[in-house]
């Protein structure tokens, strides 16, 4: 009986949390207009969310592309199909690895920082202080960060894929001797702009939306103690990773299913 009781309680708690998260999201989105009137708030957050993630995204993208180049070459050369290395590297980066890995890195690098920042603001009663001054903390604090995440994510994913493809080319034709012309021309022949690139961008926008939402809500909803903030930060990273990977499966099934 205890088990069933616990199940009921925990599901009620999680549905309650989902409801609060949805309410929070609606409030956040309703603040978009007032943030666009004050673009300075947005550029500041673009700096801390986007620019600060730039380096980790670029370096990881380069190495992921180089590893894909190596592994792809070993497998493809068994079939004498080294020329299709470019297709393999580009398709896996643009469709899957670019959006997914950059979203996971984004959740770890920027999402955790957002949660900790907002959780600490709550713990030190800065958010209540704003309310006392009749400033809506959601419009002033949350919405700019949400928008910054939404804008940064597709840009970061684009950088990740582009750098990765160049990395694959460096390894493939620089070290392993795949013909450079074949690398690019086979890639251009097989990668479709709408099917592959636009779908990848749509994926990364969805991931940016979800990762920023989770990070901001966990921070806003954190128990205002140092332990509560640390737990919320952990939850951000774990929940974002689950959600991103789960959504990726659904989006892939929807987008690439009809081939």
């Amino acid at each position, binding site marked *: 009986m205890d088990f069933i009781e616990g199940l009921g309680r925990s599901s009620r708690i999680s549905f309650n949390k989902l409801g609060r998260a949805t309410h929070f999201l609606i409030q956040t989105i309703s603040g978009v207009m007032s943030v666009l009137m004050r673009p300075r708030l947005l550029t*500041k957050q*673009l700096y801390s969310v986007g620019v600060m993630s730039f380096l980790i995204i670029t370096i990881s993208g380069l190495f992921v592309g180089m590893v894909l180049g190596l592994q792809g070459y070993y497998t493809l050369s068994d079939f004498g199909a080294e020329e299709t290395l470019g297709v393999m590297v580009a398709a896996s980066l643009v469709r899957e690895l670019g959006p997914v890995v950059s979203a996971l890195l984004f959740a770890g690098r920027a999402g955790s920082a957002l949660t900790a920042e907002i959780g600490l603001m709550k713990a030190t009663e800065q958010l209540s202080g704003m309310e006392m001054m009749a400033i809506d903390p959601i419009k002033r604090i949350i919405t700019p960060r949400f928008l910054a995440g939404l804008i940064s994510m597709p840009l970061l994913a*684009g950088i990740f894929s*582009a750098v990765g*493809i160049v990395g694959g080319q460096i390894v493939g034709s620089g070290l392993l001797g795949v013909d450079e012309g074949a690398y690019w021309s086979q890639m*251009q022949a097989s990668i479709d702009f709408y099917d592959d690139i636009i779908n*990848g961008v749509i994926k990364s926008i969805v991931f940016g939306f979800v990762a920023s939402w989770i990070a901001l809500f966990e921070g806003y909803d954190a128990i205002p103690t140092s332990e509560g903030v640390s737990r919320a930060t952990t939850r951000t990273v774990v929940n974002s990773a689950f959600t991103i990977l789960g959504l990726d499966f659904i989006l892939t099934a929807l987008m690439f299913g009809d081939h």
Partner: protein
Amino acid sequence: MQHTRNQDTLVGLFVASGIAGLFFLAMHVSNLSSFSDEDSYTITAKFENSGGLKVKSPVSAAGVKIGKVTSITFDPKTYKSVVQLSINSKYNTLPDDTTASVFTAGLLGEQYVNLEPGGSDTYLKKGGEIEITQSAIILEKAIGQFLFKSAAEEKK
């Protein structure tokens, strides 16, 4: 004040490099730069069997890609496969006795339509039809025929 200005510059650089990355993907990685549908014309070819040909398969002449397959349908009256080819309008001088055949790139590669121009003086126009076609070679069929042939020779 100096600090915010630096920040703005870095944000600008970040957004610019993100857009540059996406632009690179669009122009250099995908097929967006190679063809757009606007400057092309469509011709049809009817094959006995179009094999593993797919929509978006390349159409080439003398080894150069000049267009792509836009639709493949089955004609219930003639029992043939009707393939629409979209050819880049730069190449509007294909003779009307051009031969279309379905070839395979390499042993296991993708299938494509190869156009072999004939000697006629009149050119194929928009909506024209290629009359001389050659079906795809079905590997299983060819192997089957070969086996039958060698079995028949052994009996003699």
